[in-house]
């Protein structure tokens, strides 16, 4: 139904208005939201507001970065929310000694950072294995962990809330690096790394090529299976990191709630940010802006007394408009 063969598109000497909107629409929307908020929302221009928005958007951006890579190969990852729950459940178990007794606290906290992310990455590898080895469609393959993943996290914790207070572990959410909240710094680093991966490395080119035309990519000797597995591993690992941030921020881990609905937010950020959901294109900066726009819309509505439920309806409209503009711009 949708034509995504970008090679067929003639190079337009001048961009049409729609293409301009498509290219800079997210940016314009972001600026418009900023201006609107400065005019309407009380106390918008405050350190507090900036902090709230940046910390809330950090986890979405981190997960959406991985999602952008997966979507660039023409796949989708529905399991990210559940993988966040798994890593979020694992971390407190490690430094609280429920998993294995570790006397050295520094070692325990280090392991609490590493093991959950590795576990989430391993789940991502399994997703990739299903997609590449058995040729199961990504939406079905990742559906397995979407259903089972949260259950695994609940079984590990017996469904109990794990409450903790551990400043060195919670640094990832509460701490500051050069005055910037640690999770925001982490978000920026991850986004820059992903941008460089896409822009400057062979692997990045291969990811785009696989999404653009898998058969052609295979014929030109690109290791399609390895490239695809890689993006699912990265997506899993990033979801794992996001899970750590969420539980560290809450000082508690609730396997029933961590990462709930995150897959939708991440996919929406990618869509609003201008990456085609059929693959072949990855716009990390767009995803970042997409996540910011979604976060700002939610904040604008909430700060002005509109209920959270209405914000959902607005978000739905936003996704449709963004995707529609992209498709139209691509066709002209």
């Amino acid at each position: 139904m949708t034509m995504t063969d970008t090679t067929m598109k003639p190079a337009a000497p001048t961009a049409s208005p729609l293409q301009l909107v498509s290219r800079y629409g997210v940016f314009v929307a972001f600026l418009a939201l900023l201006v609107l908020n400065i005019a309407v929302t009380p106390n918008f221009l405050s350190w507090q507001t900036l902090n709230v928005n940046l910390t809330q958007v950090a986890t979405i951006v981190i997960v959406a970065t991985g999602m952008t890579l997966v979507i660039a190969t023409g796949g989708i990852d529905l399991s990210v929310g559940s993988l966040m729950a798994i890593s979020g459940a694992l971390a407190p178990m490690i430094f609280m000694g429920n998993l294995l007794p570790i006397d050295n606290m520094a070692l325990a906290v280090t392991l609490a950072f590493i093991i959950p992310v590795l576990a989430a990455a391993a789940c991502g590898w399994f997703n990739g294995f299903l997609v590449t080895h058995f040729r199961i469609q990504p939406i079905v393959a990742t559906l397995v962990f979407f259903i089972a993943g949260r259950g695994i996290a609940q079984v590990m914790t017996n469904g109990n809330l794990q409450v903790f207070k551990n400043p060195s572990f919670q640094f990832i959410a509460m701490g500051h690096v050069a005055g910037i909240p640690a999770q925001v710094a982490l978000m920026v680093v991850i986004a820059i790394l992903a941008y460089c991966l896409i822009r400057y490395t062979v692997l990045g080119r291969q990811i785009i090529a696989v999404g653009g035309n898998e058969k052609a990519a295979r014929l030109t000797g690109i290791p399609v299976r390895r490239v695809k597995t890689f993006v699912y591993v990265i997506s899993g690992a990033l979801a794992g990191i996001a899970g750590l941030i969420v539980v560290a921020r809450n000082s508690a881990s609730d396997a029933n709630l961590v990462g709930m609905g995150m897959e939708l937010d991440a996919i929406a950020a990618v869509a609003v940010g201008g990456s085609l959901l059929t693959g072949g294109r990855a716009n990390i900066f767009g995803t970042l802006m997409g996540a910011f726009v979604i976060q700002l819309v939610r904040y604008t509505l909430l700060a002005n007394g509109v209920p959270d439920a209405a914000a959902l309806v607005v978000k739905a409209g936003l996704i449709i408009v963004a995707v529609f503009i992209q498709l139209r711009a691509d066709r002209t």
Partner: protein
Amino acid sequence: MSAFLKSFAPKSSGDLARIGVMIALAALILFGALRYDYFLSPFNILSFLRYNSMFALIALGMAFVIITGGIDLSVGAVAALASVVSALLSPYSWYAGLAGGICAGLAVGLINGVVITRLRIQPFIATLAAMLAANGTALLLANNQSVSVSYDSGFTVIGQDDFLGFPIPAWIALGAYILGWIFLERSRSGRHVLAIGDGEHTAALMGLKVQRTLLGVYAFSGLLAGLAGVILASQFGAGQPTEGVGWELFAIASVVVGGTLLTGGSGSVGATLAGALLLGMVFNVLNFENGLGWISLSAYWQSVIRGLFLLVVVVLQARLTARSAT
């Protein structure tokens, strides 16, 4: 009836998977009957049918959508929305509640269809957005809490009472499946649905009304989700704005387990029913295990096992498809 049975005869890999689901269902029923004393008791069978009718209805709509090569992620949220609308209208009369719920579902289905066919937005995105919007609307209408239904108007009869010894929801689901089967296997429009899933472009070139058929399929899926929402509200005595989370995945799983390929172009109504029953039956068996204390399975294990089950089925399906392709 023989044509109905014949539709399961193997012709391709999809058919092999369809036979697989029938055998698995039969094996599970046999296992349950041998292992548990009350597995085949009328009480268990009737409550099984009563509870699983909602899922079966949603799976039927999903089967049609998936046969056209699309997907409908909004069904769970639509059922929740419909349950709220029907609960709000139930004080007026039972049919106001019924009609309200169905219309709410149909409306979202039509919006999905229009967005997909007119704006040409991928079904995945369109229905994802509809899921958010329906969820938000349900919460707004219900004021963030569940809405109790009126017990005076007779609305609860739809979900809770029996007709000729069988639960009314089961009759509704049976009727929908018979209509769905006749439509897909015996009508021209049904052939069009299959043709569109096989190749939309080719179908359009052959002069089929692709847009109109797709619109109809999404409207049908929305309508059935609305009906499931009515049953939900009627059965539990309340409209539940937060219910329905994950129902779409249950429906997709039922369709996939039933051997319908997510790439579209083929599929069977009967096997979808078998898939929905099989998934429901797994839970029924797990509950028996729970009740008798053979293995003490917590509710958390259930979703793990559900995931494992889906894994086994999709891997087997992939294997079968690969073997018949070579």
